[in-house]
């Protein structure tokens, strides 16, 4: 029998219509047409505006008949549209009363918040037509990508090694040797998968890939005249659409396929994909910002507003998304479910996640409904959820982010603690013991395992690793804000000269310090996160806030693979060493006791004397041994591992703990030696076995087998 629900019931001009289905929101391709669904709590009328792709003026404006509204949802099926060439938006009528929080204006054409493809910035950096009244245009998308047998990899969290990267920055540099029109795109990353495999990481964390506007707040540098842009992209235009300008096929509107294809290929190579998602604010900015979508659709629903109708600014970016409004909460949930189901995304890192735990008036909630809903959502059940557990409004929740047994945290205390110890601060040894164990002081009390702690020393925010050991102070003049932007609490040390130097002693120390940092990161329990380019000693010339530069300050220079190949080899080795040793990747916190009957505690602490760590204020050295019989709580076989960290300015003799009879210590890694590592399985026997000299500011790793 023929279906009768696929036939139009209404006409408007040449368009054939039928009352639509309210769910799902956004657009859905249905037999013969497209189902449109949009909601607003305060609008009085709604009009669908249709465009032919790239044309400034609409081809049709179809008011929703009264009978097509269900509750606060306007829904309609329009038949016979050309899926590939149609663009659409809405005009919303309603009160314009700023103090009451309403910004309705029928002069504005509004993007669908659920748009799966957004046109208008199809090619990165191409100057937009500013006279176009509809800058960010909703388009239709197919959901029929051929995934074959792919699905998210579900790597156990404690086994993850994350590489934080920027889509454009990774391959935009001419030296990337990626095809010219693939540079700086998803296709470019795909071409570099062999590099990621060689490095050894098993997850990439992409800085924002939701559609954003690189021209938002773009400006000329007051002195140099350089164009400064919204390069990082922490300002979402649309939550359901991949950034067109990140796709080599963006100009054909095929960014969806290109990103899916990248995810599929990464999965084939054992690499997960984590998206950095920004739900704390939108690209509409403050009271002076543009109408893109949310403000004109339902301002009072989408944003946190003061009693006077102004925008709260807990994000530091002009507005704050009203995440614990039930309607917005559902948008966030729908969004993440969509990316998990439709793009096979493995996890999400939430920018300024503490905002998501504030109520509509800004107060922190004890039991934030959004965070709880995300934690218990069935579609997201096996996704990694990672919080940047602070916000720009002063909430700092590292160790106390509402976790529901699910949420991991960017561990800011790990970053700060390691940096201080690394530069030789006194009084840090006790803190180091916690950080090396996956920060049980922060998490164990709440029953949260070591993988709660995303360990990082550097991230996109702040110095690169090379700059951390080359600059005492930030040098942000290029950002055009008179060096006032960017953090001042860098805990960095320049090793004796600020910035570039030809002093061989200083350069050698910097090389050692970078290796020390990487070694400590890869030897800590928890989940290590490496910043793109740190494996190559990438510098940003001391700039610790490069959010606005679409140039060589941010583009990874692939010539470094040649010039810094020793560092790359060392980093890659440390990563593969971690992967080879389950003792470094415990699911549960270490107990500092022997619970398998090996005669050794799972972790034991040492110093220059075996079995006797120096926890005193003046101590700058610490060693520990992991018992191989306790690897993965006694369920995996591993060598014994011994790690000596000497951040003192003098070389020191470290006495070694004895191994079980028949075993010997072998040299694996030594950042203080010319030969800084030995291949896995080929580590030479240490002679003598009783102890060794550990050079000033260096890390030694031994394996006992």
């Amino acid at each position, binding site marked *: 029998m023929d279906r009768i629900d696929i036939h139009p019931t209404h006409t408007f001009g040449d368009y054939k219509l039928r009352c639509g289905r309210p769910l799902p929101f956004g657009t859905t391709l249905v037999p013969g047409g497209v189902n449109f669904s949009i909601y607003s709590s305060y609008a009085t009328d709604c009009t669908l505006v249709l465009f032919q792709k790239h044309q400034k003026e609409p081809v049709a404006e179809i008011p929703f008949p009264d009978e097509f509204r269900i509750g606060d949802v306007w829904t309609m099926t329009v038949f016979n549209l*050309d*899926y*590939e*060439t149609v663009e659409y938006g809405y005009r919303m009528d309603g009160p314009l009363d700023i103090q009451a929080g309403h910004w309705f204006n029928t002069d504005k054409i509004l993007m669908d918040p659920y748009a799966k493809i957004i046109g208008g910035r199809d090619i990165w950096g191409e100057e937009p037509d500013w006279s176009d009244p509809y800058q960010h245009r909703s388009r239709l998308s*197919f959901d*029929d*990508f*051929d995934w*074959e047998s792919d699905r998210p990899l579900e790597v156990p969290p404690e086994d993850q090694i994350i590489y934080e990267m920027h889509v454009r920055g990774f391959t935009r540099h001419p030296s990337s040797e990626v095809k010219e*029109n*693939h540079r700086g795109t998803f*296709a470019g990353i795909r071409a570099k998968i062999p590099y990621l495999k060689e490095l050894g990481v098993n997850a990439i964390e992409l800085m924002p890939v939701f559609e954003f506007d690189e021209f938002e707040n773009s400006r000329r540098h007051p002195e140099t005249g350089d164009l400064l842009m919204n390069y990082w992209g922490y300002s979402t235009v649309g939550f359901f659409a991949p950034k067109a300008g990140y*796709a*080599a*096929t963006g100009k*054909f*509107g*095929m960014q969806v*396929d*290109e990103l*899916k*294809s*990248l995810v*599929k*290929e990464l999965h084939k190579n054992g690499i997960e994909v984590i998206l950095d998602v920004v739900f704390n604010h939108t690209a509409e900015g403050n009271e002076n910002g543009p109408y893109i979508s949310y403000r004109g659709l339902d301002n009072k629903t989408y944003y946190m507003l003061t009693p006077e109708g102004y925008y709260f600014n807990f994000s530091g970016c002009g507005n704050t998304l009203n995440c614990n409004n039930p309607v917005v909460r559902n948008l966030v949930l729908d969004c993440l479910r969509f990316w998990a189901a439709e793009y096979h995304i493995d996890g999400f890192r939430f920018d300024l996640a503490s905002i998501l735990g504030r109520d509509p008036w800004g107060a922190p909630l004890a039991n934030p409904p959004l965070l709880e809903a995300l934690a218990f959502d069935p579609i997201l059940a096996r996704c990694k959820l990672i919080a940047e557990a602070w916000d720009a409004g002063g909430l700092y929740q590292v160790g106390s982010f509402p976790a529901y047994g699910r949420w991991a945290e960017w561990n800011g205390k790990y970053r700060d603690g390691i940096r201080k110890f690394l530069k030789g601060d006194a009084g840090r040894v006790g803190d180091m013991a916690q950080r090396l164990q996956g920060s049980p002081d922060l998490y164990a009390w709440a029953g949260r395992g070591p993988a709660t702690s995303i360990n990082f020393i550097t991230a996109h925010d702040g110095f690169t690793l090379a700059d951390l050991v080359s600059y005492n102070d930030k040098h942000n003049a290029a950002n055009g804000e008179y060096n006032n932007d960017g953090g001042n609490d860098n805990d960095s040390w320049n090793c004796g000269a600020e910035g570039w130097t030809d002093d061989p002693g200083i350069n050698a120390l910097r090389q050692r310090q970078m290796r020390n940092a990487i070694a400590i990161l890869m030897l800590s329990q928890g989940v290590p996160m490496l910043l793109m380019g740190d494996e190559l000693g990438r510098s940003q010339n001391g700039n610790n806030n490069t959010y606005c530069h679409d140039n060589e300050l941010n583009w990874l220079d692939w010539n470094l693979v040649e010039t810094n190949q020793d560092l790359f080899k060392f980093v890659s080795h440390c990563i593969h060493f971690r992967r080879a040793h389950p003792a470094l990747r415990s699911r549960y916190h270490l107990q500092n006791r022997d619970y398998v009957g090996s005669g050794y505690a799972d972790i034991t602490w040492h110093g220059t004397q075996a079995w006797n760590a120096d926890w005193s204020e003046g101590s700058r050295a610490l060693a520990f041994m992991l018992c191989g019989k306790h690897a993965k709580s006694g369920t995996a076989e591993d060598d014994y591992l011994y790690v000596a960290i000497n951040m003192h300015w003098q070389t020191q003799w470290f006495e070694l703990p004895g191994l079980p009879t028949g075993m010997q210590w072998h040299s694996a890694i030594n950042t203080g030696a010319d030969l800084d590592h030995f291949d896995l399985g080929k580590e030479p026997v240490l002679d003598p076995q009783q102890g060794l000299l550990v050079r000033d500011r260096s890390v030694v790793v031994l394996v006992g087998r």
Partner: protein
Amino acid sequence: MSFTAATEIDNAIATITLTGDLDASSAPVFREQIDIAAQASPKRIVLMASGLDYMASAGLRVLVFANQKLGTDVDIYLVAPQELVLETLQKTGFDQSVIIVDDYDTAIA
């Protein structure tokens, strides 16, 4: 340029010759030819693509449709696609749905 698709079936090999622009409006024509080919239960589908100037999103999707309709036992060969078509296939990952070869003889070998 207007799109054409013509199918010949010989010895369990279905050869479809494509010319012009394959976009949303012409994709159903291509799909019809795939249906016709599928009815003959071919062992192999050969798509002659040298005359194909452009392939948009909807066109690519017919390749996926063909793959899924015919099952994994039937290989789909795309013969001599133009550079623009080939690039689009590669960037979007659709190249994995087909086997791309330079000439007809390789496709039927």
